[in-house]
């Protein structure tokens, strides 16, 4: 495979633009997924009966191929960014919901009781005790959701939403491997950098878990 490095050099600003669009299309759904799964996870912890049906519905969406989901949503939202982002939000939800529920479940019962006995109200306990303790498990979920979303969003090009998927498809149509290569490598780089940033974020947010790992090793 011959890579035309000169082409890549000439098209850096175009590739950068595509990368930015790509990230936006990929990560906004993760953010929306998190915004839905946090309150939903809290409710599922509170009323246990809510969790199985919620997870089942999320998993059904997850099981539908992305292409099929895009086709379904095209009928309602047309060839817009929403058509790409709504399915990706549903996928993120399916990944994040169990992690939010498990994360909240990772709060030891004595800790929860101590918080109550110290005089924390329900909301304050959630915000100051339970959610912070859930952070490592939730971030583990965000990492999976973010990386798979960055990879999946390339398919969004089929309904003309741009991003690096454009370069892969265009390269194929023009039989120009360099552009396919550039798009693919950039997607991998975006995924790895995003993942690294999330690891860093967790490291910064959870010094206490750091200490725990240090002790375990």
């Amino acid at each position, binding site marked *: 495979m011959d890579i035309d490095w000169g082409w890549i050099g000439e098209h850096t600003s175009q590739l950068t633009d595509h990368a930015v669009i790509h990230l936006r299309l990929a990560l906004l759904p993760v953010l929306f997924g998190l915004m839905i799964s946090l309150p939903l996870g809290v409710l599922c912890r509170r009323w246990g009966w809510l969790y199985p049906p919620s997870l089942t519905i999320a998993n059904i969406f997850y099981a539908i191929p992305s292409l099929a989901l895009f086709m379904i949503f095209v009928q309602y939202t047309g060839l817009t960014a929403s058509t790409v982002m709504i399915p990706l939000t549903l996928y993120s939800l399916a990944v994040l919901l169990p992690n939010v529920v498990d994360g909240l479940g990772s709060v030891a019962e004595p800790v929860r009781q101590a918080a109550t*006995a110290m005089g924390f109200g329900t909301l304050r306990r959630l915000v100051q005790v339970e959610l912070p303790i859930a952070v490592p498990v939730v971030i583990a979920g965000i990492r999976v959701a973010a990386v798979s979303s960055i990879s999946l969003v390339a398919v969004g090009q089929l309904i003309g939403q741009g991003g690096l998927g454009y370069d892969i498809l265009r390269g194929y149509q023009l039989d120009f491997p360099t552009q396919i290569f550039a798009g693919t490598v950039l997607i991998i780089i975006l995924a790895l950098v995003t993942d690294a940033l999330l690891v860093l974020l967790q490291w910064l947010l959870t010094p206490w878990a750091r200490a725990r790992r240090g002790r375990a090793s």
Partner: protein
Amino acid sequence: MDQRPYKDVNRLITFEGVTKRYPDGTVALDDVSLEAPTGQITVFVGTSGGGKTTALRTINRMVEPTGGRVLIDGEDVRDRQPAQLRRGIGYVIQHAGLFPHRTIEDNIATVPYLLRQSKKQARAKALELMERVGLDAGMAKRYPFQLSGGQQQRVGVARALAADPPIMLMDEPFSAVDPVVRAELQAEFLRLQAELHKTIVFVTHDIDEAIKLGDNIAVFQTGGKLVQFDSPENLLAHPSSEFVADFIGQNRGIRSLSFAPTSELNLRDDLVRPVGGELGDTTGLDWILVVDDARRPLGWVRPGEVTGALSDAQLTSVGPTFEVGASSVRDALDTAVLSLAGLAVGVDESGAVVGVAGGTDLLSVQTHGRDDPGHRPHLHKSAAAKATEAEADALSDDHVPADTGGKDA
């Protein structure tokens, strides 16, 4: 308006016919009435399923009774918002329940933060409390997982004390640590209580812990029934039912000697000889206790084995001694059993011999108590006295408070 007369100012926590019945019909508390007095340690003890923890939790409204009421200083706890009420009541639980995501100092400062005290003030208080519960100030910035179980439990106690609540609820706080650490924690707990005089309700399944720590003991039976509420010494001497007697265990007679004071013993002086003195008349004596110029015990010797001066005699080690007044008759009996001569040596604070007692002398104290069922506490120990005793227990392997060398303090 509650017209209850405030005749007893010492009454702080009152249970009035408290009942907890769950929707499925299980009764966790069955018409429990008792008073936990101010500044004392009241222990709830009983078999599992006896409702002791449930009873504890009705005080800070973590459990709402279905009948009766709980009063603090004559005020129904239900008149106060749960969160507000709880910020004024310290709470310590079995596995400490520290917040893993907060540093030790921030864990301790939890309630001051909730009460909107400044961070600086709350942390200063936290450091002071760490010292008080025997934690190195260098641990302030560490996280709970970096601490041992015993250290975590100390943090738990400090956290409960941080807002200086008049009441402390402790739910099996020392059950999850090994026996050596437990004895240390118990000793320090009593030392703290001697300084702080909190009103404490303490739950345990361990009757020995209850007797060691409690000023009053409430025994709960399966089904949430309070079967006896009494002082430890009365509980041991006069269990109200077969259940209580069984629960207390086989050797309650010996254990009740823990509450008999050694100050009332008739100590013998006739077999004590100064090392520089004469052997004198030894008729009827099996052993002679040789003491130095300051009357500190040097050793035992049989009169027949003394040929020359007492200072040249081959002495047998005295072994452990007991401190007259501070030690209980049980401690004294223990030293008698360990002694080769079968006699307990009583010393004063400086380690000087006061006198000697044999097994029958020691047991006569208890006989006196048995003859008179109405006889109230032989010895009501102050928290300070208990603390000294418990500390000695924690320090010495053979559980004998005063040793031959005498105490430094």
